[in-house]
């Protein structure tokens, strides 16, 4: 299939040679459109993508639209090689990005953390795609700017701000297993006020999947359906130029009927206030407050009781000051205070809380036309365990010619043990009791990365490489029995021995004036298995990253008959097989380990849309184009039971 795609890509580019020569300037400007997008995540200040000293991968609103992805999981897997969403125990979604899981990659929405976790991952369903403007991905340790949990990188989802006086958007989509999605987006703006109200409701049935006989390890037999409601409102008030206030509020509810008469409910209430004051051209100040509460409950239909068993509440305040001098150098000073409250029936003595305060400073130094250097340092203090850390980061961009960027960076990452990792006490159906360890050390990492960007006319080429050395990684250790309770297995959170993750990516992209665009990306991830401090293989509760992964995309956009705009695209991904070391007998570790092989797979999607008068859009998509069905539904198998034809309709009125 990959060969077919490459052939198509070459054919497409050959077919457009004449088009390139006729409108080379247009072609360059097409690519410049992306390079001139403003990104904010890498240095916490607005920078053009081509100028930012911190290597940033950008998924623009156009890319989101043409990807036809209905959720963040689909989008990231389609656009970024090395990203994999699989299942962890109890069919909880687990994220892996080049060897880093949910605790190692920080997910932000408009710069704010998402609270709550299940098996170390945030609830990805909270990210309402209908309100997303763009996504910025910064790989490598970003703890110097974002603090704990940014050991492997930051994924920042930026939401839309109204551009037109008013806008009404509505969409509906239907797919296999009664997968229904409704979306609504209402926007209004005038000189002073801009408001966006977006809502999304989706549902899908539970369905059975069937594996062949004799699986090597556990398989999934049923994919649970869900119902999800996501509503968000954002109000921006600009009383006069230079002063802007933003208020937001959100509500999220997901219901999963793992047990039909006792569906699990996941709720989130979020809100925030932000003030941005451009004191002058040189001085900018931003102050913000954020509230986020993530609850889990079981709704027992028989008794009619909705009983909460988990609540994570976070209140945080932040101040950031930017000073830009006449040369364009930027000094950034900031600080946060965060109060974290966790009430979980599965932790010792119920509720726990923790406060975190930090200050950080960064200087972005434009040395000359070719060199730009950014240095940052952050000091964090955590009340629980009286832990403090200083994390530095330095990045450099070198531009030897107008169309080439070379970036290098070093960052120190750290992650403090979560309240769960310190105080958990959970009897997992008698299988084992998972116990927290209050004396855990913070996880530390040293990250080195480099990248090379080159773009010319219709083409761009990017290659990146990274190396991470991780110290004291926090994970569950090997099962053991206690002398006083010899029949019961226990799993304790421990610090692991140092280990390494390294890898790289290569992406080639082409855009042509005749509406064709193509992108091919490859990622290599080499994850050296972590061992415990006694040198034993660990009891990894997540399947490791796949060594090779590849994403490919080919799109064609054509406007005809003035009012009609048509887009046809095909995209796919390939993930190589992966071997995990698993113990033969968790009750007798001396029996040794076995290598469990999880097979490779490839999935492809064909989608097309027809837009009339820039208002009415009909979308047809065939996901899993080649009707792939996993032989075994292991935890990291794609959750498909065959080709999925989807039809969608949207209306957008301005």
């Amino acid at each position, binding site marked *: 299939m990959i060969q077919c795609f490459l052939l198509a890509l070459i054919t497409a580019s050959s077919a457009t040679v004449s088009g390139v020569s006729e409108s080379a300037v247009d072609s360059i400007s097409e690519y410049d459109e992306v390079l001139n997008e403003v990104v904010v995540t890498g240095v916490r200040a607005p920078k053009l993508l081509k100028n930012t000293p911190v290597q940033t991968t950008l998924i623009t609103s156009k890319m989101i639209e043409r990807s036809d992805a209905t959720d963040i999981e689909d989008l990231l897997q389609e656009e970024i090689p090395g990203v994999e969403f699989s299942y962890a125990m109890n069919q909880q979604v687990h994220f892996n990005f080049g060897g880093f899981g949910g605790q190692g990659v920080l997910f932000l929405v408009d710069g704010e953390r998402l609270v709550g976790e299940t098996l170390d991952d945030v609830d990805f369903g909270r990210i309402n795609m209908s309100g997303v403007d763009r996504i910025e991905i910064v790989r490598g340790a970003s703890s110097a700017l974002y603090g704990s949990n940014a050991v492997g990188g930051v994924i920042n989802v930026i939401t839309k701000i109204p551009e037109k006086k008013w806008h009404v958007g509505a969409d509906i989509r239907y797919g296999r297993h009664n997968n229904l999605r409704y979306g609504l987006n209402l926007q209004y703006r005038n000189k002073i006020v801009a408001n966006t109200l977006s809502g999304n409701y989706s549902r899908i049935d539970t369905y059975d999947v069937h594996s062949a006989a004799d699986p090597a390890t556990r398989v999934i*037999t049923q994919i649970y359906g869900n119902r999800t409601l996501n509503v968000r409102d954002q109000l921006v008030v600009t009383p006069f130029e230079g002063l802007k206030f933003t208020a937001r509020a959100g509500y999220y509810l997901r219901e999963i009927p*793992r047990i039909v008469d006792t569906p699990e409910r996941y709720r989130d209430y979020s809100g925030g206030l932000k003030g941005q004051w451009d004191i002058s051209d040189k001085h900018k100040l931003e102050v913000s407050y954020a509230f986020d509460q993530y609850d889990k409950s079981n709704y027992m239909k028989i008794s009619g009781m909705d009983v909460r068993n988990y609540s994570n509440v976070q209140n945080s305040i932040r101040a950031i000051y930017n000073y830009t001098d006449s040369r364009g150098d930027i000094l950034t000073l900031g600080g946060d205070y965060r109060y974290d*409250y966790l009430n979980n029936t599965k932790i010792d003595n119920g509720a726990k809380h923790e406060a975190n305060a930090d200050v950080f400073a960064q200087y972005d130094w434009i040395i000359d036309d070719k060199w730009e250097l950014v240095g940052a340092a952050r000091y964090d203090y955590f009340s629980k365990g009286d832990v403090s850390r200083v994390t530095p980061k330095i990045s450099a961009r070198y531009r030897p010619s107008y169309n080439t960027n070379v970036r290098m960076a070093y960052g120190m990452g750290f992650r403090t043990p979560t309240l769960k990792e310190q105080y958990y006490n959970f009897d997992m159906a008698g299988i084992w009791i998972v116990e927290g360890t209050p004396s855990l050390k913070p996880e530390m990492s040293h990250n080195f990365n480099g990248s090379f960007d080159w773009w010319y006319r219709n083409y761009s080429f990017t290659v990146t490489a990274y190396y991470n050395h991780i110290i004291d990684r926090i994970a569950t250790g090997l099962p053991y029995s206690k002398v006083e309770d010899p029949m019961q297995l226990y799993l304790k959170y421990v610090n692991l021995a140092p280990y390494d993750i390294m890898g790289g990516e290569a992406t080639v992209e082409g855009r042509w004036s005749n509406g064709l665009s193509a992108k091919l990306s490859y990622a290599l991830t080499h994850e050296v298995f972590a061992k415990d401090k006694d040198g034993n293989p660990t009891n990894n509760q997540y399947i490791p990253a796949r060594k090779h992964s590849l994403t490919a995309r080919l799109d064609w956009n054509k406007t005809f008959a003035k009012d009609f705009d048509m887009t046809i695209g095909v995209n796919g991904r390939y993930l190589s097989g992966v071997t995990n070391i698993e113990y033969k007998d968790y009750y007798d570790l001396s029996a040794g380990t076995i290598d469990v092989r999880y097979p490779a797979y490839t999935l492809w999607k064909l989608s097309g849309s027809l837009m009339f008068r820039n208002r009415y859009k009909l979308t047809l998509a065939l996901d899993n184009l080649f009707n792939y069905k996993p032989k075994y539904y292991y935890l990291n198998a794609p959750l498909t039971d065959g080709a999925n034809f989807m039809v969608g309709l949207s209306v957008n009125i301005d």
Partner: protein
Amino acid sequence: MTTALRSYTTWLHILLATLALQSCTGILSGVYDEPSEDEVITVAGQLYIDASDWGKWHYIDLQQVADSTAANPDFNPSGLWTSFDIPVKEITDDNTRDGIYTYWYDVFGSGLSVNEFRSFYPTAPQPQPQKWSIAVHRNNVRTNGAAVAATDFRNFDEIPQDKSYINSLVFQKDTWSESEVWCEQSRMLLGLIGNQGIMINKVLSSWLKVDLPPIPPAFTMYDTVFIIRLDDGSYGALQLVNYQSQTGTKCCLTINYRYPI
């Protein structure tokens, strides 16, 4: 600048006021119900028992329940359950079939229906009270020489006064089981579960079904009304109406009963 500063100060006050008002431990707790394990709410004609313990059978005498509630309508019959541990200590007895049968179940694959016998060791027989009608252990039910029939009724109000319908019911007595009464879970991760070898009533036990996978197990409750014919020839009606405690613990049984009918 002064106006801007004033606006900013006002905004900051709003921010701090909001912050002060905002509970650090969360909002909207009223959305949820507050469970209480201590306050088990039952109505007349209802029994409650926490049968979640893998290692216990819980016994009740329906005649004693009937006598107690007849004498005092406010009497809570749930206090009449008596519990006995399942014997798990190995004994030397080559001639008994009482004991622990370890089976392997395909809990990570095809499910409980695919299983294999692995080992047996004898134990003492299950202790029990002198007088009892039914006993429950998680999703298992046994009777004291009784027989049970499933009906099409879903509510006690549907049970006719005329008992002639009983003649058309198919009653089943307890039968031997060595792979359903799970009592030992120390090697469950390998799919190995120790079962008590014991007589159970499979008709009445069908009111609560357990499936593995998924993990954790899925429970399915059936609201069938069962007619029980006790060994003295009297009849009663039983129906499982809930299998969870207020906090969601599975196998905490709320049973509607009518005895005698």
